[in-house]
């Protein structure tokens, strides 16, 4: 295996590059509304799908709006919404999953079957009903997305925790009479941190995708707010012209997710 040698030390900075780029982009996006050259809903050019130019660094979109501006606005809302819902879903999922693995018995059965039920209801239905019932607002969106991803995270965490709780060191700790909270924080969580963090990273990607699907259905963010997935989708026709309007948001998503996931990988490794 030619590639299977350990990473040379001088390559390490390059590996940090995606994470650094993602971080840089993130900072820029959070500052988005202040640094954006135009208003997000403003038509600034008579040319649609314009290429990169001095006036429009990332060209124009399908209506002739400035892509850079929309990208900056879109990134901040995407990151905030998706991060919030992912953290909520994975936090709750990990907690419940570990509880179920530790308690076993009826709690585990009921919780697991309930989660199975929830996860198998199509997310399209859940999303539509949530928004129809509670109206379309940012908190509703975050909660709905969190609820949709909670069961998946629960399943993964429960499985991981189950294979750990049977280990000798847990049994030993239980023999010692350690409290459940000690078991969770000191013994179980550190031993499953790697896969859980990988799961968190993946769920963030799915959240980005779900957000754009919800917007497509008409229940996502309301104009002029937007998210990265929707930016890609609404400019999809530009693909035949190689327009930056469709490439830039797709790259932005890739940077964000690759950076985040590599960073999480690193965290998992250090555990």
């Amino acid at each position: 295996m030619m590639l299977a040698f350990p990473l040379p030390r001088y390559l390490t900075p390059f590996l940090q590059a995606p994470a650094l780029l993602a971080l840089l982009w993130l900072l820029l996006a959070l500052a988005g509304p202040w640094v954006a050259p135009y208003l997000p809903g403003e038509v600034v050019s008579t040319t649609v799908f314009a290429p990169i130019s001095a006036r429009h660094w990332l060209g124009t979109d399908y209506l002739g709006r400035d892509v850079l501006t929309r990208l900056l606005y879109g990134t901040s809302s995407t990151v905030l919404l998706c991060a919030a819902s992912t953290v909520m879903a994975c936090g709750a999922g990990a907690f419940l999953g570990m509880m179920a693995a530790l308690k076993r018995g009826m709690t585990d059965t009921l919780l697991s079957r309930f989660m199975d039920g929830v996860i198998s209801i199509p997310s399209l239905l859940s999303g539509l009903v949530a928004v129809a019932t509670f109206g379309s607002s940012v908190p509703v969106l975050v909660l709905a997305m969190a609820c949709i991803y909670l069961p998946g995270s629960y399943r993964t965490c429960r499985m991981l925790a189950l294979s750990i709780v049977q280990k000798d060191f847990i049994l030993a700790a239980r023999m010692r009479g350690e409290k459940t909270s000690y078991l969770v924080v000191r013994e179980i969580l550190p031993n499953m941190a790697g896969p859980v963090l990988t799961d968190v990273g993946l769920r963030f990607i799915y959240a980005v995708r779900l957000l754009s699907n919800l917007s497509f259905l008409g229940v996502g963010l309301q104009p002029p707010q937007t998210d990265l997935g929707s930016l890609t989708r609404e400019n999809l026709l530009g693909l035949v012209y190689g327009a930056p309007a469709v490439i830039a948001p797709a790259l932005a998503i890739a940077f964000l997710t690759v950076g985040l996931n590599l960073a999480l990988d690193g965290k998992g490794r250090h555990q």
Partner: protein
Amino acid sequence: MLNRRNMIKQGTRLLATGVCAAQPWLGTTWAEDNNAVGAGFAQAGQQGTQPRTGGHVRAASTSGSLSDTLDPARQSMATDYMRGNMFYDGLVALDETLTPHPALAQSIESTDFRTWHIRLRSGVCFHDGAPLTSADVVYSILRHKAPELGSQVHYHAMTMRTVKADGPLGVVIELDVPNIAFPSVLGLTNFAIIREGTTQFHKANGTGPFTCAVFQPGIRSVALRNPNFWQPGGVWVDSLELISISDDMARHNALLSGDVDIIAAVDPRLVALIRKRNIAVLESPTGTYTNLAIRQDVGPGQNPDFVQAMKLLFNREQMRNSIYLGFCRTGNDQPLPPEHRDCNTTLPQTEFEPDKARFLFKKNGFLNQSLPPLICSPAANGSVEMAVLLQNAAQNIGVKLDVRRMPADGYWTQSWMRFPMGFGNVNPRASADMTFAVSFASTAPWNESHWRDPRFDQLLALSRQEPDTTKRHALYNDMQAMIRAGSGVCIPSFITSLDGFHPRIQGLRPHQGGQLMGYNFARHIWVDEQPTRSTAGGTAP
């Protein structure tokens, strides 16, 4: 009184199928507006080949779902109309300028415009071999009256007081009130003639140019040429497969890759690319419009100044350029497009005047008031973009407008006409009379802005009994002026329908009735494997 006899004369050859026989394209206003149409079309007329029989064609439309149906009463989507027109015929057919001509009817006559005598063509057979009789026609029309059928034309059927057979080939229809434009009503695709007693629609049994070989809702329909079609030279291709691809990019890709020969609804942004690849784009000026309806019975729309200000806030030039890329004609807040024979072209054009709008908003205290949101949806083509442009124009004069985008499914029943300000999308109606009657009269079922003007209703009733074309035109002109000034409906543009087709397909012509020749392309096209010319028209404006 000869001129009070029916205006449709027996024996008129309708829907000429050969390009050479095409009627000269009426209306010059729109042609000046959009030269590419005229040029491309004239070329087709001069150099087109003679129609020939044979060939297989695959066409892709936009909408398509489980709700696809072969029941004429329930057809409501573009693909349904196209499919219906392959298998069924109506008593009346509308030509490229929406002029009614007799089809299954041989003549339609009335002296008082209230009682209409229809004489059926003899020797017409259904696909199962049964001959067409007056009983079939009576059944086909009367069934729309049953509310539980859920007919799209229930409203129009209810305007017919009685529908009776008069011998094996005669039908008499008596209306509630006289209506000189009644033949156009019979030209609606939904009033297609089916065999008496039909209740199951798994297969189509009509008199149309094709027989139904396969029908799979949401997937595809396959049509085979009907060898016994009543109209000689009325159909050319041997077989036709109609599918629907709702994903825009996928539909264009299927055309570009050659997987399909014809697609409906080309996106204006891709016209240049498609033409560059030697694939033709058919431009049809239609009366389709996406409009903002400001309700005048609730909310700020009760104040006429607010409505006026909103109309002034439409940057029609910008919408034309950035939403339709020039493939539209500018609207003037009245529902007839400029190429329509009854359009009032003398009305002054409403322009984009933000300062005047701001003045009106300020004068009435709307500047600091929270306004109801603009309701829009992908279901109403282009409405989300329009709402965004309007929102931005409002922001520039210090008015905050919220945009609320609704899911496409359920939009027409859950949102449309229910909010103080919402977008709608209206397809061209069969006649000016129908437009006024169903969308603007006080009792109209789809009076989007809830506009009520008794004088308008009087003019409508008058126009329906006015046999003199010039006088009727004058009445229509007044009515359009009233809509533009009074109604809460803002119509910024009329959409030019764009359809893409490979050069091997011949016979497609622009049609005011909607995309792909008023959804009726199947019977008009023929296949020429070695086209002698490039059908790709001019470049995009």
